[in-house]
């Protein structure tokens, strides 16, 4: 934003334009871009998700609206817009109305600190990572409000599950991000992305290629999936148990807003993951002259969509886990693992030469993983003996 402002001011064409106009233009353009690009990605992510899930199940997926179904998102939007908006009679009207709005706002705010390319960031906050966590916890409020205001036991159960889950997964997720902050020495997302530049083809310095970085990446993705309630952590809206959880009583465009918020949060989390662990916009050719920023943006979106694809792939494969398994996994496996990971990152910083540090931290983390999966593993169920069936 500031860069755009400087650029506009330095350009001789706009010499006559007053400063305040330039300022507001430089504010409005990034906001407009965020509001245009990411919801468009959201719309097509839903299509990609349905197509990919179809292919995973050996189906074709949507293919009727437009060629290959590319107009399907528009049809869905039109359908949801024209549907009747039903509010339960016993519902708390105002909170019921407010919940979907609250669901979307934090998700959009998250994109403010995601650098798409070198210098291409809406707002370069120096507390970017902290901002992300602060905002993403606020999204749980929407889930709670939606579930509570509906006056429906399934909605309330979904809301309770959502709150418990988000609060639990917040902790390992923050600790997983701490290693990145430690390595980059800054909370700013731009600085984190810059710290991963250089090396062979701009690839080898990505944090994911460090042992602690890899573990942090896995922990962070798990946390992000739980935070945005994606399968296998979708118990807040487990349709086979509690209908649709907190958005059971929502229809029409309010329901669409919930979906929008959820998908935007998932997209933003994928973007943050790409920035923090996968080098952000760093990739072969992003330091070229003139077109470097374009190559960087390409790499960024490629990484974002790959993460989204993996999340979809996981959704198509793994079954939903139980509530007690979910919380036990967060507190008994992820939390200790992330604390060990912080330790490993510190060790890596102080041990020289780096290849030795690499091996030492890798061994440490592997042992921690072995121990935790043994300790934290759920009790093995005895083989059942049947009295009559055998």
């Amino acid at each position, binding site marked *: 934003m500031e860069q755009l402002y400087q650029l506009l001011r330095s350009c001789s064409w706009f010499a006559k334009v007053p400063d305040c106009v330039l300022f507001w233009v430089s504010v409005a353009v990034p906001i407009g871009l965020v509001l245009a690009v990411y919801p468009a990605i959201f719309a097509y992510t839903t299509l990609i998700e349905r197509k990919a899930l179809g292919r995973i199940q050996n189906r074709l997926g949507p293919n009727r609206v437009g060629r290959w179904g590319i107009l399907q998102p528009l049809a869905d939007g039109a359908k949801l817009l024209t549907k009747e908006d039903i509010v339960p009679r016993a519902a*708390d009207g105002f*909170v019921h109305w407010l919940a979907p709005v609250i669901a979307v706002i934090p998700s959009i705010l998250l994109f403010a600190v995601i650098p798409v390319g070198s210098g291409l960031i809406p707002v370069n*906050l*120096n*507390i970017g990572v*902290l*901002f992300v*966590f*602060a*905002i993403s*916890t*606020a999204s*749980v*409020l929407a889930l*709670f*409000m939606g579930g*509570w205001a509906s*006056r429906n036991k399934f909605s*309330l159960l979904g*809301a*309770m599950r959502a*709150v*418990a889950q*988000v*609060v639990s997964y*917040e902790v390992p997720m923050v600790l997983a991000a701490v290693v990145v902050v430690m390595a980059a020495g*800054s*909370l700013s997302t731009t600085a984190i992305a810059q710290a991963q530049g250089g090396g062979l083809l701009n690839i080898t310095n990505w944090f994911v290629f460090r042992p602690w970085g890899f573990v942090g990446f896995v922990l962070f993705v798990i946390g992000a999936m739980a935070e945005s309630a994606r399968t296998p952590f979708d118990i807040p809206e487990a349709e086979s148990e509690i209908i649709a959880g907190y958005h059971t009583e929502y229809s029409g465009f309010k329901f669409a807003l919930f979906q929008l918020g959820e998908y935007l949060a998932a997209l933003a989390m994928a973007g943050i993951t790409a920035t923090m662990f996968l080098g952000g916009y760093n990739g072969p050719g992003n330091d070229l002259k003139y077109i470097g920023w374009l190559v960087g943006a390409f790499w960024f979106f490629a990484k974002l969509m790959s993460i989204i694809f993996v999340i979809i792939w996981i959704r198509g494969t793994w079954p939903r886990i139980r509530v007690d398994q979910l919380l036990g996994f967060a507190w008994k496996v992820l939390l200790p693992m992330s604390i060990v990971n912080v330790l490993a990152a510190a060790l890596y910083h102080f041990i020289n030469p780096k290849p030795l540090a690499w091996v030492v931290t890798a061994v440490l983390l592997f042992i921690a993983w072995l121990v935790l999966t043994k300790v934290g593993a759920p009790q093995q169920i005895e083989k059942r003996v049947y009295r009559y069936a055998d």
Partner: protein
Amino acid sequence: MNYAFWIISAITLLGAFLAVTLRNLVHCVLSLILFFLGVAAHYFLLRADFLGAVQILIYIGAVAVLILFAIMLTRNVTGTEGPREVFGMKWWSGGVIAAAVAAFVLQAIKADSVTAATSTTQANSSVAEIGKALVADWVVPFEAMAVLLTAALIGAVVIALEEVMRRR
């Protein structure tokens, strides 16, 4: 800047007022969240980004959610059961305590030299500065807090374990 201050202050005060006057418990908590948000906005206005973000993270993300969760675990889930009148019998004792606290805080603000300066240049609250201050100048209170929190955590685990043992 001034307009922003007045608007945010109005919202903050409105949230605080609603939090103590509304009948429905959950509505009270939601108003409290509005109040927390207003305080965070004040921090941002003062260019204390870190404090603002932490305010949202801790107070909205943890404290308020914890209160909501506690309400949901009670039988009064809808939040509609509760005392009929807003001001209870002992409202004057609360008033006295509030007045005492306000006087104390006002005294502290008056006595402090930093607020007297009222300049934005001096309020350098970058994350690095805060970090260094915490682990260098204020390391003893910081560690004391850490020990306190750890003790509280262990205490919570012990209480939960007792419950589990009794059930067995």
